[in-house]
């Protein structure tokens, strides 16, 4: 889009917003809703230029909308709408940044005394292992092998108990379990390799 066409589009939008605001001042709620919904994405984009935290961005957008509401009688419909909105938005963003500055000045940064290892990763709390891949791999095993793993490992039964429970001989249980471990090892290590590559 050429610069001129863009300018013309902006002027058209500005005029539409000015019309909506004038109608809102006269009490037209539908026009007011349209106006607020139309300016919110723009305000959010502007706020994002100065604030990183999405919560701060949303807070400041709401702050701007509240101020706009409170001082809506100061808008003069014979003047452009956008400079009026931008001045209000800028003041709220500046106030938010100053407030953050004061907050940062009052808060003490605690040195990381709890970190005792030189390796950064060693200080991280270990995440709970992800069992979903294991369960999926077990579910994919042939029925005999799956039963052997479930009885011997998940339920922690002895070979004799497992044999009684399943009706399989101790020997066939051993063979099924052995094959199951081999398959699982293959599946899970392959999975991990994929994770590391990704």
């Amino acid at each position, binding site marked *: 889009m050429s610069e001129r066409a863009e300018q013309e589009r902006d002027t058209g939008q500005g005029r539409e917003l000015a019309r909506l605001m004038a109608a809102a*001042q006269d009490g037209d709620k539908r026009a007011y809703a349209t106006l*607020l919904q139309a300016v919110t994405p723009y305000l959010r984009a502007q706020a994002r230029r100065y604030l990183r935290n999405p919560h701060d961005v*949303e807070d400041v957008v709401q702050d701007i909308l509240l101020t706009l*509401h409170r*001082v809506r009688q*100061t*808008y*003069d419909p014979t003047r452009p709408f956008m400079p009026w909105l931008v*001045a209000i938005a800028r003041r709220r963003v500046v106030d938010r940044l100053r407030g953050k500055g004061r907050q940062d000045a009052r808060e003490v940064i605690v040195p990381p005394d709890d970190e005792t290892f030189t390796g950064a990763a060693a200080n991280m709390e270990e995440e709970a292992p992800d069992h979903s891949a294991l369960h999926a791999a077990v579910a994919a095993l042939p029925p005999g092998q799956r039963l052997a793993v479930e009885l011997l490992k998940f339920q922690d039964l002895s070979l004799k108990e497992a044999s009684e429970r399943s009706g399989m001989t101790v020997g066939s249980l051993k063979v099924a379990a052995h094959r199951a471990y081999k398959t699982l090892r293959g599946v899970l290590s392959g999975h991990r390799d994929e994770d590391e590559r990704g």
Partner: protein
Amino acid sequence: MKTDRLIDTLVAEAQPVRRLRPPLVRAGLWLGGAAALIAGITLFHAHVEGESLRHLFGQFADPGFTLQWFASLATGITAIIAAFELSLPDRSRAWRLLPLPAVAAWLLLIGYGCLTDWVERGPDGWVAGHSLKCLGTIIGTSVPLGAFLAWMLRFAGAAWPVETITVGALGTAALSATGLSLYHDLDASLMILIWHGGTTALIVWASRTIGQRVFRRA
């Protein structure tokens, strides 16, 4: 609260509003009110002290006094106009410079008065005594004027609150000093500088500090 819900609430609450009149008209209204108040105090003083108005205005025979008086009046008027313009979000911030020429002229004229006092009277002319009454009268006139101004400029928090407060306080204090000149004699220009200039600076400083706190809390 989600932004969409906030919008719904604001729309539900939105009653028709009366647009503000142009800032110059509102500044004119305020200045009219201030003129009435100062005229009232002047007449009251004339009555209490049993002096005729001719005596009060007799000082205008002195060109130094007349120039100073008009400079403080110009400071008051331009600062008040600037305050009404700055209180609206979409007006240029450059309005805050409007009272500067008048302030400069006012201070220069008082300073020149000090110099001529020195030349005419020597060091004795400089210790003309203190005048706490001045302080009291300027603050006493400024407080009701300032409260009325603060009410008229209550939307100023949206854009340039500190600038608005500063020029508003300057205008209020300058007009109080203008009124004071009519009914309160000061022997020497240095006293005028201290009491008028000093009180004006004090009022501006106090208003800025209080205003900043109020807006920070809001």
